[in-house]
């Protein structure tokens, strides 16, 4: 099988710039390393075809794994922000909904499906899709905790009527979080346009050219990014 490569055959120099701190990356991967086992061990009770894994000692073992992972998963953001209080403010600023999110939504099909990155209005360090992923993870983290802790310690203490609702909401949060996780996994691992994402989360750096193209508001600053964006639009209108 031959692969036809197109493009110029020149030496490429990539200028790397920092994107994520060491602790941000550590937090991300600890979140992953606890989220995945939590989802898998929880599904043992969710899917009837996994019933053999739920029975007896296997079921008790998976609950133990679920609880150990849950403690780390739950404490992780709290510990992180205690040590990095300024990152908390930064993250809140970065994840708040903004005007460019609507622009992202409009441009997303052409951007993600056709690879037309020139139609995407300038985005911050996290684009609107990454912000959505982050918000879903934050909200479901809270729901998992608010429902999971009373389910762990509250049997026989809280009214059964309340417990039943907790089970339902724990499941709902899982469904939303797992669907979001699947999309996130695909974009990070397999989508050609997002190639720099995995590099950044592994090594903490991103290509300057990539940042200018995909995260212009972060790379240039909001004002300069919009100027460049308007300029490009004017140019495109001329041609």
């Amino acid at each position, binding site marked *: 099988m031959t692969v036809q490569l197109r493009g110029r055959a020149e030496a490429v120099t990539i200028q790397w710039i920092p994107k994520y701190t060491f602790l941000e990356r550590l937090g991300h991967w600890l979140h992953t390393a606890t989220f995945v086992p939590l989802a898998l061990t929880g599904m043992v*009770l969710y899917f009837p075809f996994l019933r053999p894994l*739920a029975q*007896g000692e296997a079921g*008790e073992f998976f609950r133990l794994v679920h609880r150990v992972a849950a403690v780390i998963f739950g404490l992780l953001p709290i510990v992180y922000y205690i040590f990095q209080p300024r990152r908390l403010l930064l993250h809140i600023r970065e994840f708040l909904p903004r005007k460019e999110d609507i622009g992202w939504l409009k441009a997303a099909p052409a951007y993600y499906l056709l*690879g037309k990155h020139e139609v995407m209005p300038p985005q911050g360090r996290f684009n609107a899709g990454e912000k959505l992923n982050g918000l879903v993870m934050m909200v479901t983290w809270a729901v998992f905790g608010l429902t999971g802790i009373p389910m*762990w310690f509250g049997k026989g203490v809280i009214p*059964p009527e309340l417990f039943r609702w907790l089970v339902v909401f724990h499941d709902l949060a899982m*469904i939303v979080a797992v669907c979001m996780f699947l*999309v996130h996994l695909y974009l990070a691992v397999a989508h*050609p346009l997002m190639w720099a994402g995995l590099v950044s989360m592994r090594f903490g750096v991103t290509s300057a050219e990539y940042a200018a193209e995909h995260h212009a508001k972060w790379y240039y600053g909001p004002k300069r990014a919009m100027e460049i964006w308007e300029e490009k639009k004017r140019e495109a209108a001329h041609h």
Partner: protein
Amino acid sequence: MNGEKSRVNISRREFLGLSALGLGISLAGARPAVAASRAAAPDEVAILYDPVKCVGCKACQMACKRWNKLPNESTDPLGIYESPRGLSAITWNIIKLRRTDVGWHFFNYQCMHCTDAACVEVCPTGALHHDPMGFVALDRDLCNGCGYCTQFCPYGVPHLQVENALTGAAKSAKCTFCQDRLRAGIGGPSCAEVCPVGALQWGKRGELLEKARARVAELQAKGMNARIYGENEAGGLHRLSILLDEPEQYGLPSVPKTPGLARFWQRVVQPLGNVAFGAALAGILGVFLFVRRKIRMEEVR
């Protein structure tokens, strides 16, 4: 671009394949259909409790403890007749006392062995299941201690025997109708076998219902407000009782049923979740196939 259309678009066959994948995942998680509330058969086994005959001797409570090798439970001596206070993981059968204007009333509490059993419906392991003889059996080896049964039973019967609160090592515990005795053909449930006054009897459910009807007529003739509890409740209980008052006076629900939330959870939320998983995976695979042809990595900066 027109000439390349077949190259860049998802073909019909692929689209059908993806749809089948999504549908497959949606259905793979489906729960085996639960038989629409069947009625309890007359040849199934049952227990009949007649509180008018009961003298409150607690022989049933003792026999239950002995046969099932359940340890003692200590109670605060507060001058009450009830000891222990209620059903627990190590007390599966208990006589409680009610004081009314007319006098003292005893009432025996144990698992009601529902036909539409909420515990069986929510049990994710199959540890709680319907025995072909009719009662709700418990296979403790299969139980993982999740405790759903303790939270969904309309009678609050199953209790968790917690070995370690932190790790969650636990087993569900409740009256099993002395399933080992019945399966081995030794005899009936020990509580009914030991009862010296015939307040607790066991036998074929149909025959016990006949006896209960005759007994209710007899008590009504004496001017008592007697009725049968368990003939149709929760699809028919396998522990029938004669009551002399509203069920609520005995702490029993008039209309016991599987909490609606259990059905909403398992028959609405979970199937919708399966559809979401199927749609997400099929959608991602479709986008993957589409993008692989449409976006060339060599052109990506």
